[in-house]
């Protein structure tokens, strides 16, 4: 009978104990006798969120294909269990083997959003692994991270031995081979291993690089400590999507995950080049998987998991060239096996409305637009190609097709934003509502229309044309949301409009983490020690504690937020060669300020530099 690490007593006391028992369908168990390297993959958030992440499933599949490696998983224990573990001094353990993380060779933490940073420390703390890299010994596992947040790893650099820059499919084999041979040599030395690892493409070892600061607080220099180390770390990219591993037997959780369905990653990267979007830059070039391969994956995944729903994953599914063929195949295939199709946000046109009408109940579903900004000027600034005519013609078709619910997503606090741009948001919402009443005859209406507008506050990210932009004080964000709300109430169709906005505290913190430097790590450590974790969860986020942490550590958040950087300044992430030239970002930043748009990668190559990877759209354009 399978033995669990936690006692029955504890499991009966905590919420959703099935989060901690492992043994899910398609999880992998191996015989330790044949294993040279034990890897634990970690998503530093609660199980239901972590289990919804495709990246871990891909790497789990890839690592476990190696007979000498066993990859297991761990997620953040929920605060109820955290408290018990702290009180009873219980170590954190991996789900598969139910053994302490301390027994592992490597722990890989995926960083998908900045607000999970304190949870990194929770994982290390509960595992009894020193929080600071400098305190670790040969007995401690190697702590790695990967994912979008690593495009500025400096605020968390102090906690990691290795930062993996780019797509995981590329360099892990080399790292594992190195580790296994170092271990087998019998004279394993952690620092020597890290020094050798730092020469593997895509791997950044923060402890081997030094930063010095100028009097004004900006970075004066960033240099390797040894001459044999690279000056820049180049982002790793999968050049052949069809040849890369894909999890056709993904783990099926018992506890319902946020993403409780089969997922097909149809492509990586995006052709659009929206200037606020980091993903649109750091996953270049746009690379598609072939439709025939995807059809096979769909059948295999459904058969191996028993999922009753399938969804497509990409940054902009409407741009997938074989979308029609794939969707028609899925409708046919899924109709036979009673599988639901969950559509990603598609560009609203005749095709997508036709597909939606086949797979959703029109009365219950809504159509979604992401104009991101209310005015055409602002949309030109951010290079969002969607025009008012696109939105109106899409909405009119949707209304004619029987829909009466429209969702609109916007951002507030974008660079150069004026009051007029802000007011344009509810004015656009009103115009869409008016379109409904003007074009749908009374007898065909299914009651009022419902236009829901949501705004999030914009946070500038590294490796985007807005990486130099200033943010705003917290009060200013809320003032802008109030303008939207007040203007909405003045609209003729205000009874058909709804508006939702976010809290601004989190935005400030995200801003500091996204573009912070090594000095921010003190703040994160201090905040964790004062009890901050699960900051991505409203009920646990305590902004006052963070303000105290900044004060206690002598770090001024405004230095990171309230400052437009000069394009000559050394940015904390400049040592990363993301494959896109700084020139391109500078050009785009200038064009943004003049509200000039840049064409998408399919229409015209803009010479961003991604061509150096020689794959995907760069070869076809």
């Amino acid at each position, binding site marked *: 009978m399978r033995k669990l690490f936690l006692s029955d007593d504890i499991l009966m006391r905590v919420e959703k104990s099935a989060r901690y028992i492992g*043994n899910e369908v398609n999880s992998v168990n191996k015989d330790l006798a044949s294993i040279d390297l034990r890897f634990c993959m970690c998503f530093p958030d609660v199980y239901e969120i972590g289990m919804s992440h495709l990246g871990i499933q891909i790497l789990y599949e890839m690592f476990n294909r190696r007979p000498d490696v066993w990859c297991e998983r761990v997620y953040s224990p929920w605060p109820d269990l955290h408290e018990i573990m702290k009180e009873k001094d219980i170590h954190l353990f991996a789900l598969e083997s139910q053994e302490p993380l301390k027994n592992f060779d490597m722990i890989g933490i995926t960083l998908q959003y900045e607000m999970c940073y304190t949870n990194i420390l929770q994982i290390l703390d509960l595992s009894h692994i020193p929080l600071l890299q400098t305190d670790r010994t040969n007995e401690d596992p190697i702590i790695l991270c990967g994912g979008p947040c690593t495009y500025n790893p400096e605020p968390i650099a102090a906690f990691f031995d290795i930062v993996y820059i780019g797509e995981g499919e590329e360099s892990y084999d080399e790292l594992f081979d190195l580790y296994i041979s170092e271990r087998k040599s019998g004279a394993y030395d952690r620092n020597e291993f890290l020094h050798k690892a730092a020469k593997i493409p895509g791997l950044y070892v923060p402890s081997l690089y030094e930063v010095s600061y100028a009097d004004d607080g900006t970075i004066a220099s960033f240099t390797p400590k040894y001459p044999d180390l690279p000056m820049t770390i180049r982002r790793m990219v999968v050049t052949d999507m069809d040849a890369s591993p894909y999890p056709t037997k993904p783990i099926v959780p018992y506890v319902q995950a946020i993403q409780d369905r089969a997922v097909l990653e149809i492509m990586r990267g995006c052709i659009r080049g929206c200037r606020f979007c980091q993903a649109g830059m750091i996953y270049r070039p746009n690379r598609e998987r072939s439709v025939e391969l995807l059809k096979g994956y769909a059948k295999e995944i459904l058969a191996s998991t028993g999922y*009753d729903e399938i969804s497509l994953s990409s940054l902009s599914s409407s741009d997938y060239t074989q979308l029609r063929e794939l969707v028609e195949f899925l409708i046919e295939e899924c109709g036979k096996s009673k599988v639901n199709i969950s559509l990603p946000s598609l560009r609203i046109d005749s095709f997508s409305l036709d597909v939606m009408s086949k797979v959703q109940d029109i009365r219950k579903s809504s159509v979604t637009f992401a104009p991101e900004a209310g005015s055409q000027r602002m949309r030109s600034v951010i290079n969002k190609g969607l025009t008012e005519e696109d939105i109106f013609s899409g909405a009119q078709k949707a209304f004619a097709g029987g829909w009466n619910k429209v969702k609109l997503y916007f951002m507030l606090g974008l660079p150069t934003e004026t009051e007029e741009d802000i007011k344009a948001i509810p004015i656009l919402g009103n115009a869409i509502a008016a379109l409904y009443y003007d074009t749908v005859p009374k007898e065909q209406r299914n009651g009022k229309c419902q236009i829901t507008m949501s705004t999030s506050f914009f946070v500038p990210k590294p490796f985007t044309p807005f990486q130099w932009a200033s943010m705003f004080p917290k009060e200013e964000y809320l003032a802008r949301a109030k303008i939207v709300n007040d203007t909405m109430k003045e609209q003729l169709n205000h009874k058909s409009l709804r508006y939702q906005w976010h809290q601004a505290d989190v935005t400030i913190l995200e801003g500091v983490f996204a573009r912070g430097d090594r000095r921010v790590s003190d703040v994160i450590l201090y905040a964790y020690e004062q009890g901050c974790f699960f900051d991505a969860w409203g009920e646990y986020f305590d902004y006052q504690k963070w303000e105290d942490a900044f004060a206690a550590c002598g770090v001024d958040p405004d230095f990171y937020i309230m400052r437009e950087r000069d394009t000559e300044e050394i940015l904390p992430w400049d040592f990363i060669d993301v494959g896109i030239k700084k020139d391109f970002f500078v050009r785009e930043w200038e064009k943004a300020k003049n509200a000039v748009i840049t064409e998408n990668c399919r229409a015209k190559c803009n010479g961003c530099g991604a061509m150096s990877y020689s794959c995907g759209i760069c070869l076809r354009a």
Partner: protein
Amino acid sequence: MQRLRCHELFLRHLFKGIILKIRIKFKKFGTMKYIGHLDFMRFFMKAVRRAGLPIKYTEGFNPHPVMSFALPLGVGVTSGGEYVDMELLTPFDCDELIDLLNRQMPEGVWTESATSLPEQSKKAMAEVSAADYLVYYKRNHPALSLAELNEKANALFNQSSVLVQKEGKKGVREVDLKPFVYDLSIRSMADLTDHWIRENVLYDDFCIDADHLYYRMTVSSGSNDNIKPELVIKAIYTYMGLDLHAEDLHTHRIELYRGTYPKLISLGVTDENISDP
């Protein structure tokens, strides 16, 4: 699309006469006891899909298998007698069906048998009327002797009524347990001879000695007057002036029944089976 629907209707018409209702009996134990009822239902549906059984789905935009679980099992409770009803579109050998399902089950779920049901039979959920439970101590075993405890329990249930506070959806209300506890005995662990239970339920890290005692009871169950076994034990403790900590107990469901006491019939036995000589 329209044509596809017509085709489906035609097929359904054709098969109308032979949609087969079946009832599956399964056990839930080991680490699977930590999976809550809703998660377990989703897990079971996925297993049925993986097994590739030709089962009937509901209509509409979000079709799901037509399934009826007899009675939810609480988190932490193990069971040797769980039931779920399904409908098959084509005839299928019961043994093969069980075999296909078991191949999809992790440790802790074991489907034991499948029985075909008469077309007009009620859903498992609507049929359940009683359940057999075994309850033992994970810790804090009482210092009382078997004889003492039995004596107290008998005295309690020899009263004209056994009033307890029962927590329900609409708050706490007073209930008379007496008519709903059909059978109750307190026995010594040494007398527990069921091999499967000894291997799969008493395996845990709990300290269980041969001279420990356990409760065996048959109580009213189902959508009306569902009695949890802990409530019965709590009544005995209250009668003795003691406090019960429900977290000290482990509950194991042995079997589910339909019919009216004293004529209880196992949920796995159909009317056709009964009339068989």
